[in-house]
């Protein structure tokens, strides 16, 4: 299983990678910007993407739109500090499969990831 982790913070990217470490994941890519994420996703069509929203350059919701354009079935889990319901609802309407708020709770993250890959 291929995982793409998108966040402008390297500390967050590494924490997500550690939290999701398992035998199921065979390949992990990381991107610090929305632009890099779209490029990487287009090349590899990762099975799961974790995606931040507030990033320099292309924001996460625009990046989500572009990933969904490439693959309408993409499994994208938003992980963002933005804790308002309107943003979460908007992300789900645009095609995200789930929404988690920072700070990241490792067990919630694992649970959300497991639900995503069960689908």
């Amino acid at each position, binding site marked *: 299983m291929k995982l793409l982790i998108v966040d402008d*913070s*390297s*500390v967050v990217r590494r924490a997500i990678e550690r939290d999701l470490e398992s035998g199921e994941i065979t390949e992990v890519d990381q991107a610090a910007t929305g632009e890099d994420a779209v490029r990487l996703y287009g090349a590899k069509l990762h099975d799961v993407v974790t995606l931040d929203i507030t990033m320099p350059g292309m924001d996460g919701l625009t990046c989500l739109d572009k990933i969904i354009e490439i693959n309408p079935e993409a499994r994208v889990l938003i992980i*963002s*500090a933005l804790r*308002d319901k309107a943003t979460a609802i908007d992300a789900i309407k645009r095609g995200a499969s789930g929404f988690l708020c920072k*700070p990241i709770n490792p067990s919630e993250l694992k649970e959300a990831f497991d639900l995503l890959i069960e689908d």
Partner: protein
Amino acid sequence: MNDQDIQVFISGIRRYFESLRKDLKVVIEPPFIKEDEKPFLEYTGIIGISGKTRGAVCFTANGVMLENILRFLNEAPINGELICDLVGEIANTLSGNAREEFGRDFLISVPVVSTGGEVRFRFPKECRNYVIPIIWQTEKAYLLVCLT
């Protein structure tokens, strides 16, 4: 800004530090207003706020606290780049979490990080500087909330 608004940031601070380790309690001292200079420490993550409210939210801490947090996150080796990344991410998390109360019109920028206690950011003059002192593992940090 009122007491309820400040409470939103206090809840966010508790949530952040408890996410690191629940049994290590964070102490939040009574917030105060500082009209003159701002108490910036070694590392400061600054989030510009726009939309209905304008100003900035800053998380400022010394290197020791940030290094301790990075150890809790199992980061090794620790270097200045990681510390800057972390202080910006904490500021981002505490600001973004405040949208729970302020809603989607509370627009947050990506973090800008300053080091050495010097911060070059144009704070709106009409803002009052609310300072929330934070103590975690004997180290002190501040969240500065400067909003119209």
